[in-house]
């Protein structure tokens, strides 16, 4: 790997995210570990969306659906594991994280396939609206489904298990999320650099050109959308485990908007843009949220400044324009 300015910034970001909870742990301040875990999970969710939005140019306003589906998979499987009742067709619940992750990714992928297959027949504003509509359908479904708490949500009494790790220890759970985030970012980088990634980026830049060289833009985008949904779904499962609670708010359009905001703040399409954005967002939420309930007003101002003057987001501001070989 060549040590470009962007790579250096990425390294610093990754190191800082690891250092903060380590220091907080040594200082006996577990609250900051939770904050850092929140950053890691939101960054992972936004990394998923970044594949669709940043690489593929697909402005999905419905990724909360996948985030929430991941969350509900964790909550539902855990509740069945606790009660001992089968989930479906005699299949029992589980409190094993890695099974939950696989199920969350699979289900988010299947739902992503269905939503994408229809939504990707449109583009532009229509695509934004139709993804929003699908996510709202999932949201209202969850609200009106009393078996799993409906509007009140569903608690996870004991955080799910990971072999050989005491997941209730905040630092341990942080490390799980941190490693998954790094794997997710690495996967993002590999996909972006691959033939598929080239086609997905080209489809964003010029759909007609992609078709003219013999590649169906629709199939490329649908695949990108599904992969994107799977990563965001995985993040959702972790988020539910962090809060030990899942509710329809994870599925709401606010959440979809938040993920888009994270990406724009950090740098659209940039490898560490979602992490930079999530860190900025959570820092704001924490620092300003303590002072005023209206902290989102100030976040809005920052977002405005970024959109007007720093289109590459925080990473773009620090590292300069993205390069494409």
């Amino acid at each position, binding site marked *: 790997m060549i040590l470009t300015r962007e790579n250096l910034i990425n390294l610093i970001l990754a190191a800082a995210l690891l250092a903060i909870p380590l220091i907080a742990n040594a200082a006996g301040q577990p609250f900051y570990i939770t904050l850092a875990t929140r950053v890691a999970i939101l960054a992972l969710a936004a990394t998923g969306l970044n594949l669709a939005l940043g690489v593929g140019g697909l402005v999905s306003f419905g990724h909360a659906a996948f985030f929430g589906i991941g969350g509900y998979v964790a909550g539902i499987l855990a509740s069945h594991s606790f009660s001992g009742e089968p989930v479906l067709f005699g299949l029992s619940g589980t409190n094993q994280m890695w099974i939950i992750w696989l199920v969350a990714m699979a289900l988010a992928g299947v739902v992503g396939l269905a939503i994408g297959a229809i939504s990707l027949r449109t583009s532009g504003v229509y695509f934004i609206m139709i993804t929003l509509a699908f996510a709202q359908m999932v949201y209202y479904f969850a609200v009106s489904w009393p078996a799993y708490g409906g509007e009140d949500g569903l608690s996870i009494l004991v955080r799910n298990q990971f072999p050989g790790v005491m997941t209730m220890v905040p630092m341990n759970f942080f490390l799980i999320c941190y490693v998954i985030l790094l794997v997710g970012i690495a996967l993002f980088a590999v996909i972006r650099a691959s033939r598929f990634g080239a086609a997905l980026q080209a489809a964003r830049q010029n759909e007609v050109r992609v078709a003219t*060289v013999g590649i169906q833009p629709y199939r490329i985008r649908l695949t990108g959308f599904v992969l994107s949904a799977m990563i965001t779904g995985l993040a959702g499962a972790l988020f539910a485990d962090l809060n030990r609670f899942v509710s329809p708010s994870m599925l709401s359009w606010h959440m979809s908007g938040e993920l888009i905001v994270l990406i724009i703040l950090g740098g659209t399409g940039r490898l560490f843009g979602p992490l930079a954005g999530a860190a900025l967002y959570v820092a704001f939420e924490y620092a300003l949220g303590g002072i005023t309930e209206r902290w989102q007003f100030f976040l809005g101002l920052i977002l405005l400044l970024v959109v007007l003057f720093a289109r590459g987001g925080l990473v773009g501001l620090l590292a300069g324009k993205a390069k494409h*070989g």
Partner: protein
Amino acid sequence: MVEPILQISNLVKNFGALRATDGVTLDLRPGEIHALIGPNGAGKSTLIHQICGTLRQDSGSIRFAGQDVGGLSVAERARLGLGRTFQVSSIAPEFSALRNVMLAAQAKEGSSFRFFKPVMRDQGLIDKAMAMLERVGLTERARIPAAELSHGERRQLEIAMALALQSKAFLLDEPMAGMGPEGSKALTRFLDTLRQEAPILLVEHDMDAVFALADRISVLVYGRVIATGTVDEIRRDPTVRSAYLGDHG
């Protein structure tokens, strides 16, 4: 007679009451440059859109490389070997010239569903793309983002992409448009050699280029082909002269 690469028969396309393509029959034979000329609004663009698949014909057939392609998508026709350039160059602006051609080369090789191997370390693909860039004279500009290329260079880039597809026919939509006199001359020389690679259906307004290059010319007026023939036949044709050529004849 050699079988044509592209055979268009009785093609019709209506937009409401307007018949934009009115029973067009036209073919493209191996080794030739077939120029399609006609005044603005004659339906040239509509015809091109139907050939490459962005518009579906109302009736009639399009055969390409031995099969009926009338129902295929743009991408499917491209994979069969229909290479095209656009009136306004169509490129991926953020990508370098090299990456643009690599995209075509990867499409030709088959799968774009490869998720792991980094494309910029795929030496086979890079070599293929560089060879095409060299043929059109863009070697020096390979690493420049396509958005920063000049108008003429983008034309060359589009041709390099069509070459990378190993096209069986080229569909060139006004390649001379916006080129200076020098650029036009250079491009004319290049197209003259290109016909040996694959036949060219050339839609062009620049009559000097058309007369210099074309083996045959078809004249499209109000959606109909009013004449097809050699350069001399078309120059002498009275209906063409009155309908279109005017002083040029």
